[in-house]
Structure formats: C-alpha cells, structure tokens
C-alpha cells in the first residue's frame, strides 16, 4: 500500500464567475519510505493538492487515498504536516502548544516525547517564552516539533524552509533526511529551492497549471530534458587540432570543452587525454541542475 495515491483528481475554483482550474486530472503515487518532491511555480496547484490530502478541500473528480483510506480524522491522526510560515497563538508558549497536540494525538509518555523533540530542535531556551516573540525560524522549529510529535507515517512538508536562514534551513534538511533514513518516514515535500529538492528527493513530480508534467527520479527527469552535459578541462598546454577534432573538443587556449552524453564518456575522455600526454590542471563539470530543469520545463509549457 502506497502512503499516497492520487487518482485523476481535478478541482476547479469559481472566483467571481471565473473558472480557475487548480488541478486537472492529477495522478501520482508516493511510495513507502521515499522523499517525494512536488515542484512547480506559484499557483501551480501544489498546495491545493496538499489541501485535498488533508481533507480541507474536496476534489470535483477523482480520489486521494492516504495510507490506503480517503482522508478522514483517523488517517489524519497518523500523518502530520509542516508548512513554512506556520503560526500558533501568540500568547502560547511552545510547551503549551506541544502539550496540547500531545494530548490531541494521545501520545504515550508525553513528557519524554516532548523533551526528546525539544532537544532535537534546540527549543530548550524557548520552551516557556510566548510565541509572539519568536522569529520565523523559531516558529518553524515549534511547527516541526508539533509535526513530529505523533511519529507520523507520512509527513507533508509545504515549503518548510521558506524564509529561513541558510544554517537553519540546512538543519531542517538534515533532519528530514534523518527522519527518512532512520525512521523510515515517507515525506512529501514542496519547495521552491531546487537544490533542496535535488538534495533530498528520491523522485519528483513537476506540476504546472494543475497538470502533472513530469514524474520520475530526479536524474531521470533531468535526462529527459537534458541529454548532455559539459566538461571543461584546463590542460598544461594547448591540445593539437587533430586531437581536438578527434574528440569533438572546443578549444580556447589550453582550455577545452567537451559535450558528453553519459557518465562513461567522461572516463573515456580522461583516459584519452592522459594517453596523449596532456596533464589536467583543472576540471569543471557543468551538469544541468534541477533549477535548469525547472526553467526549461516552465519555458516549454
């Protein structure tokens, strides 16, 4: 059983007599234990899809199954969600918030679990301070602690690092990886930070104007749009024209650029360079990033 199965989901909003197609026949599956990235520009339908999963929105057509069931209170108790910009009642303290949700989730050994999370997210010194005084990062740490209270089987993360300092964002990413690896937690992540998605996700789906454009492993979807990559070598001397022609190199002084199709081609080229007696002084590989992919797909659409 997949933690998330979305089958042919469509949703249209009617705003001032205008129809806005938020989701159009969306289907996807998130497998047990994977980190799945949902990419797309603003207004593409990412949050709408998450809202359907959270039972805050009813689709017009199709169905969503979370842990094998249509979203309902019992299912929601087994999963959790953390969103960037999360807010809590300003007058409450993290201790109040965590106690409340530990009660709601009926957490056994409530105190121990809260202490564990407080330590993990470095909330010790903030525990009894009113949330009104918190920075965005501190608030997110509280939201994270709340989201992990029930040891969710599935964690939905909607732009979790939005507005965070780079060091805090890195801690969040490390924690996501740890949860996934050590606790086998399935994670659905939406993010505008492509390096984050590239670093964390096993598979991604690209959603645009409510439609899924691509689904697959990060490498796979990139390869679909970028068949080649470039390698730039700085040699100890300018290569001969014959050598450059034979290996399809563009030469500029002692720098050469090659466009390669697969990983093996790089080792072959390096071997040939070595065989011809050139010394490689510097090497730079220009592989397409997920950001390149994002921009290209957006352009194509």
């Amino acid at each position: 059983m997949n933690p998330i199965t979305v089958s042919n989901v469509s949703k249209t909003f009617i705003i001032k007599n205008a129809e806005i197609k938020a989701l159009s026949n969306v289907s996807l599956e998130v497998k047990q234990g994977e980190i799945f990235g949902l990419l797309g520009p603003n207004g593409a339908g990412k949050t709408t899809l998450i809202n359907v999963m959270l039972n805050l929105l009813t689709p017009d057509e199709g169905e969503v199954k979370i842990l094998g069931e249509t979203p309902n209170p019992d299912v929601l108790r087994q999963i959790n969600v953390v969103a960037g910009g999360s807010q809590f009642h300003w007058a409450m303290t993290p201790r109040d918030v965590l106690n409340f949700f530990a009660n709601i989730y009926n957490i056994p050994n409530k105190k121990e679990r809260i202490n564990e999370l407080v330590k993990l997210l470095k909330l010790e010194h903030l525990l009894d301070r009113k949330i009104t005084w918190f920075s965005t990062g501190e608030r997110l740490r509280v939201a994270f602690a709340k989201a992990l209270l029930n040891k969710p089987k599935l964690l939905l993360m909607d732009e979790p690092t939005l507005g965070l300092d780079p060091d805090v964002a890195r801690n969040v990413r490390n924690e996501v990886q740890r949860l996934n690896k050590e606790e086998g937690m399935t994670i659905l992540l939406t993010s505008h930070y492509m390096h984050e998605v590239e670093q964390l996700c096993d598979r991604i789906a690209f959603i645009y104007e409510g439609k899924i454009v691509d689904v697959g492993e990060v490498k796979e979807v990139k390869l679909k749009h970028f068949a080649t990559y470039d390698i730039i070598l700085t040699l100890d001397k300018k290569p001969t024209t014959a050598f450059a022609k034979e290996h399809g190199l563009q030469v500029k002084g002692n720098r050469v650029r090659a466009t390669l199709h697969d990983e093996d081609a790089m080792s072959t080229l390096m071997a040939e360079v070595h065989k011809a007696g050139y010394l490689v002084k510097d090497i730079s590989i220009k592989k397409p990033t997920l950001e390149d992919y994002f921009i290209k797909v957006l352009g194509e659409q």
Partner: protein
Amino acid sequence: MNLHNIISIIKNDALMIRRVKWRLLEVTYFPLTSILIWGLFALHSKQYAVEAGLIVLTVNLFWSFCQLAQQQANMLVMEDLWTFNIKHVLVSGVSEFDYLFAKLATSTTIAITIGTLLLTVANSFGAPLFANIKTVAMLAGIALLGSLALAIIITGIILSVGREYGFLSWSLLQLFIFLSAPFFNRELFPEAIRWITEIMPFTYVFETARAIATGAQVTTGTLWHAFFITAAYFCLAWPFFAWSIKSAKKSGMMSRIAH
C-alpha cells in the same frame, strides 16, 4: 464524537484565556458595568415607576447572558482563525464537530460563571431573581440553547463564506435581540413584521423575564413555547453547520481560511 479531543481543546482554550492578560476582565467588564448601570437605574426609577427599571434590569441580565454564550464561542473560533491555529487543529484528526462542541462548552462555562455573578448583582438591586430561581434557571437554560444555536450558525457562515464575515460574531445577536422585542410588547412592532417575533429565539425568553421582573405569573405554556423555538434553532443549527463545512470544503474556503 471524540470526548478526548473535546476535553483537550477546552483545556487549551482555558489555558489561552489564562495566558491572555485582561481577557477575563474584558469579558466580565462590559456585562457587569451594564448590569450596574441598569441596577442603579432600577433603584432610581423606583420613585417613578418601579417596574420599568426592574424590567430593563432583568431583560439586560438575560441579554448579557445570551451575548456571553454566543459571542465567546464565536470569538474563540475567530481567535483560532486570526492566529491560524485552526489549521493545526483541523489537520490533526479533530473533526469540525468536536472542535465546535469544545468551543460551545467553553463559552457555556464562561456564560454560566459570569452569568451567576450578574444574577447576584441584579438580585441585589431588587430584581426578584432568587425568589424565582427555578424559573430563572429554566429560562437561562432556554436562552443558552438559543445562543449556542446562533453561535453554531455564525461559525458555519464564517467557515463557508470567509473570515471577513467574522463581524457577525459581535453583531448578529443584536438583530435577533431587537426582533425578539426585549423591553416591550411585540404588538409595538408594525403588523407586517410582527410575525417575525414569533420565530425569534428570545421573544418568549424576554416575555418571561419581564413577567419575573414585574411579579406577574409565568405560565408553563410560555416557557414551553420558548423552549420549543430555541430547541428548533439548536436542532437546525447542526445540519446547517454540517452543510457549511461541506460547502466550505467544496468551494475552497476551508483551505483558504485555514492558511
């Protein structure tokens, strides 16, 4: 209905009220000063017409009680909307019904606590309330039922059409009170709209309150009439709330309101 969730929310609301300084004072301040003003008016008016002052005082007591019960429930919901706390609660497996039920329970507790204080103050100004405590208690129960029904309806409206309709939390009751003919006989309304008073939840509550204030006989029939109308409101409010949730989830308002 999940009692565990309901109790957790009530406890959290109680904690929130404790954490927000002046909150309880603010909730008590307006009805208490209002009862004090009308209590003094009742004393002052003794020399002119005893009953007028007592009518105003007794009706005000029930008015304040209704306002506390309805407004506190809706304000607790609005506070969750303003602080975005509602999303965390609704996605944690708490049903919308458990959520609202908890808010109603908290507001009922507040209304009964402060209402008892107001009752004591009003009685000390000469309103014959302790002398008719059984009827007063029954009438308070009926008024509570009608107020909670309005709180449910208002919550449903806010969730289905948006938080900008939050103003209904502190304004809608006023219209219902006006149309329930609080200080006067409903025959004073133009004939064309008099029928409305018949279906207002508080018309017979205020009629009975006026009877208590003047020492007139309270008929069981009037009490039953008041009960049936408020009970009907209460029974119809829940399906309306269910419909509102369904419609809010369909229109997307529920997800917008929760963010």
